[in-house]
């Protein structure tokens, strides 16, 4: 018990003192997950909106597939990206394996379906409301998608945040394709796993506290933004 308490105060000291190793790990984690979330949003949001609006053969299959991919196990993504980027793999020549780029790629693949699926849901609701008017005005397909994305932007934030939450919390994919190399590909989650295994509880706890803190701040921000959006539309049915 004393040991844990000591580790906990050491962890707080590291956070408050801005321990360089801790800061480096946090910054790399944020860089990887934020880049992945931006890429996944660019890919996933239009796909979600398009799936909500367009009727084409195979659409249902795609929606079911997307929903299934929402729960994609990180280790499976890690395996696929590892094989693809390994020296003998199709993209081996890029030399991305065990670099942050591989981690970004893996996380992007992991969360794009999640963002697209959640976005599709909110876009489908907005489309049900707007469809008659946009069709009456003769809005073309691409402008329809753009209009829905813009008018539904606050709702879409939820899907992006869900994506960020998943990316920041996962450990399986980044540890496989990043390798948890100190100062290069060590993220919060991989460091926590490693340090705990080594019995180095202070750093693990410090990172754990920060990881939870980041998640809290992001979710509080999302909540406030949602309130703001609702206030903006107050009185609307």
């Amino acid at each position, binding site marked *: 018990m004393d040991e844990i308490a000591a580790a906990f105060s050491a962890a707080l000291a590291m956070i408050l003192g801005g321990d360089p190793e801790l800061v480096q790990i946090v910054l790399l984690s944020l860089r990887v997950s934020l880049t992945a979330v931006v890429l996944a949003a660019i890919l996933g949001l239009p796909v979600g909106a398009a799936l909500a609006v367009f009727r084409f053969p195979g659409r249902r299959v795609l929606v079911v597939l997307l929903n299934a991919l929402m729960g994609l196990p990180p280790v499976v993504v890690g395996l696929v990206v590892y094989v693809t980027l390994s020296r003998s793999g199709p993209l081996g020549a890029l030399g991305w394996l065990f670099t942050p780029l591989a981690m970004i790629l893996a996380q992007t693949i992991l969360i794009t379906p999640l963002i697209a699926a959640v976005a599709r849901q909110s876009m489908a609701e907005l489309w049900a409301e707007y469809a*008659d008017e946009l069709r009456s005005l003769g809005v073309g397909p691409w402008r329809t998608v753009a209009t829905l994305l813009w008018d539904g932007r606050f709702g879409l934030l939820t899907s992006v945040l869900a994506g960020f939450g998943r990316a920041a919390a996962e450990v399986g994919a980044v540890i496989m394709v990043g390798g948890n190399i100190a100062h290069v590909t060590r993220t919060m989650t991989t460091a926590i796993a490693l340090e705990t295994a080594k019995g180095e509880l202070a750093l693990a706890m410090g990172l754990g506290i920060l990881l939870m803190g980041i998640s809290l701040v992001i979710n509080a921000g999302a909540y406030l933004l949602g309130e703001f959006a609702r206030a903006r539309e107050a009185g609307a049915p």
Partner: protein
Amino acid sequence: MTPAILPLEVRDLGFSAGGKSLLRGLSFQAAPGRRIVLLGPNGAGKSLTLRLCHGLERPSAGRIVWQGPRAADAKLHQAMVFQRPILLRRSAAANIDYALKVRGVPRGERAPRIEAALAQVGVAALADRPARVLSGGERQLLALARAAALRPEILFLDEPTASLAPAAARRVEQAVAAIHAAGATIVMTTHDLGQARRLADEVLFLHDGNLVEHGSATAFFAAPQSAEARAYMKGELL
């Protein structure tokens, strides 16, 4: 003004959904400048007729023929106002701006047209208000202003005053009259017989997916020919 897409000729129009026939053998003409009001009990096919004419639904039978010279882009010369107005999450002015942009009106022309349209229906003061905080009547007037800004040759209105208080309904009627005076042909549905008397040149009376009676409003209101129309006018349930 020479018509671009009018007259509209509806020939033997039919529509079925889920194996159920909802509209059969509907034929009529909409000549430029007319105000045509569709009457009939719920489920008669009034709204469906508007949606078919406006191209929101695909007919199962029959044809909708725009006979004017610009028939190829008939879409660009029509507008529709729905029973529950659909407004985008933007200001009143931005809602109209969006519609004008979609129809390819150049940026420089949009501002004056927005202003004129809002003034035409008497809601100039609402320009900067978010559309979604407006009252029911204001929302419908904004939808009318948006339609007016498009300068449609034909305007479809689906029960535009159905859920409005009398004062708001009167303003909507005035706006419809103003849009008609500006040159638009009006095709509308209503359950308000007083409104139909005030606005209609022609009446189409539908019942159960059939056109039962079609004639001038004066003749229709003086002496409806069909038993169904007589019963409907007396307020009986059909």
